[in-house]
């Protein structure tokens, strides 16, 4: 499954939002890849997320492949669209 989200966080994707994101992704069994421009990273690692340098308003394409991909995408959708 592939979906694109916009970073909603004022400070960009680091700090507390990044920590929450890692926790969500570490509970996903499927393979997850985040893509921004020509970068592909593993969001199950904080370093991976920080590498993206994702600012507020940037678009991130999320690719999930595996048994729990549907529930996983829902969780990430909630994460990016909450509040």
């Amino acid at each position, binding site marked *: 499954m592939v979906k694109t989200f916009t970073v909603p966080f*004022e400070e960009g994707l*680091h*700090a*507390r939002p990044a920590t929450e994101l890692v926790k969500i992704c570490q509970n996903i069994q499927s393979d997850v890849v985040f893509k921004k421009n020509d970068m592909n990273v593993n969001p199950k690692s904080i*370093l991976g997320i*920080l590498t993206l*340098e*994702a*600012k507020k308003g940037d678009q991130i394409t999320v690719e999930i492949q595996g048994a729990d991909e549907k529930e996983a995408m829902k969780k990430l959708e909630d994460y990016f669209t909450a509040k």
Partner: protein
Amino acid sequence: MLINEALIDMALDADTKEEVVRGLATLAYKDGKINDCEKYIEAVLNREAEYSTAVGFGIAIPHGKTEAVTEPFLGFGKVKEVDWNALDTKPVDLVFIIGVPKKDSGSLHLKLLAKLSRKLMNETFRDELRKAETKKDIIAILETVF
């Protein structure tokens, strides 16, 4: 350069996260990067209280964005194993500290973290940092990053 020898401690004597932050912040203060040491320390520790800045592999990147910072800087310290409430629960032995003036837009902060993170994902780079014995070695390694 964001980092210089005055911002590096190759054997920081500290047992806790707070002591590490205080030690590195003091270096930045003496080097004129911060005009209010306590205020900076408070900003960094408040952030740490919300979530840990440990990034795995025994490395932490505490950071503070406050008006107490007069010039962006990067500090570095080698410590004995210190608990950093890391997600992977492992202690930390390498610490990078970042300071950015509050007036800077959010992007500098994010850019520094991204550049450093790209390098830190590389095991060879981490090994080089751990093997480095002098401040000059550290500067030489970090020059390839920024």
